């Protein structure tokens, strides 16, 4: 009997040990040995009572993965950024225009990623970067729309993220965007699927713990699009949402749907203050 008690005690110690392993690390992300990115900062005001500090998913990854993101040469996501740079300069569609025809260098888009999703007055809706890109393609270039989470589109969002790296995420949640934001918040806290899990159950209540063999992060999206080592390609944020919702064993919303746009706005706002990191590297 005594022996059993000892065993139980050892088991609980072990369990305690694994919890600690998943904690975010104390590390600083310095990009290309020149730019320090904010990966940990005080939570925005609207998270009062929920989370004190917001943390980039970078802090929840292993040493090698973190190092890979710290150097553009080692970051496989940058290959796709280069592809998008070619697309940026390539004329497409009936109007004979490229992105560069209107926007000049892609560098001039610095800061754009940081404020999207954003209210569009003319359209009367909150728009993601993808929606804006397709609006440009369709109405200004006369080109075919890109599929929401497919290669060309993700590459272009990676290019736009890469020129905004180091700038703080700062999406507006008041004014005309507020109702969309409220809808996103409701989705974030709504339990879904056979497992009856909300986003918050994992990413607010349980970050820093193990989820089977992996570390649970806060689910911040400041690093999107993300190059995932498991599928060796860039992953769009709506594709990631879909994966998460599917894991709760629910029917998912479609990438680009109004629900995911609202959720993206809300989740982005939870990371207000963190640096734009995309294309980041994750498991």
């Amino acid at each position, binding site marked *: 009997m005594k022996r059993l008690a000892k065993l139980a005690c050892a088991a609980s110690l072990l369990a305690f040990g694994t919890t600690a392993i998943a904690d975010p690390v104390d590390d600083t992300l310095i990009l290309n040995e020149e730019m320090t990115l904010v990966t940990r900062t005080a939570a925005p005001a609207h998270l009062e009572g929920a989370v004190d500090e917001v943390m980039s998913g970078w802090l929840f990854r292993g040493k090698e993965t973190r190092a890979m993101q710290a150097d553009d*040469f*080692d970051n*496989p996501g940058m*290959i796709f950024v*280069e592809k998008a740079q070619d697309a940026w300069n390539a004329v497409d569609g009936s109007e004979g225009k490229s992105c560069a025809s209107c926007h000049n260098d892609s560098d001039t888009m610095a800061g754009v990623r940081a404020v999207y999703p954003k209210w569009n007055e003319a359209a009367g809706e909150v728009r993601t970067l993808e929606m804006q890109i397709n609006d440009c393609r369709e109405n200004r270039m006369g080109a075919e729309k890109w599929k929401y989470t497919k290669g060309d589109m993700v590459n272009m969002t990676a290019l736009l993220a890469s020129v905004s790296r180091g700038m703080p995420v700062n999406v507006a949640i008041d004014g005309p965007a507020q109702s969309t934001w409220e809808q996103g918040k409701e989705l974030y806290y709504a339990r879904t699927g056979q497992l009856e899990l909300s986003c918050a159950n994992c990413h607010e209540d349980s970050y820093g713990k193990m989820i089977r063999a992996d570390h649970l992060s806060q689910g911040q999206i400041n690093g999107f699009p993300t190059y995932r080592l498991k599928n*060796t390609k860039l992953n769009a944020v709506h594709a990631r949402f879909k994966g998460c919702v599917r894991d709760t064993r629910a029917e998912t919303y479609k990438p680009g749907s109004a629900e995911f746009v609202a959720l993206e706005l809300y989740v982005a706002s939870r990371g207000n203050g963190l640096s734009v990191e995309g294309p980041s590297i994750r498991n």
Partner: protein
Amino acid sequence: MASGVKPRVKVPKKAAAGEAITIKTLISHKMESGQRKDDDGNPIPRSIINRFTCDFNGENVVDVVLEAAISTNPYLEFQAIVPEAGEFKFTWYDDDGSVYETTKKIAIE
């Protein structure tokens, strides 16, 4: 002809004489193994980078044979001792006969 092939190299701009420096190289290439079949069941012909070399001022540093199991966008990292200022020349050889070259200068501090 493989498309979208683009070599990339990272070499420090300067080094101390006799210092071992780290060189990183990557070439974007699909590295089609020749083992796969397309949707109609026909084999997709092999198309890979089969050799990589690096020379410094005409002297060979590394000469690598690459095989079909090497994945997309082969990345090679190695160290070299730099005795004097000069130029690294990197060469990739494609199955289709194409040769991709790039050079990087290095100064002695």
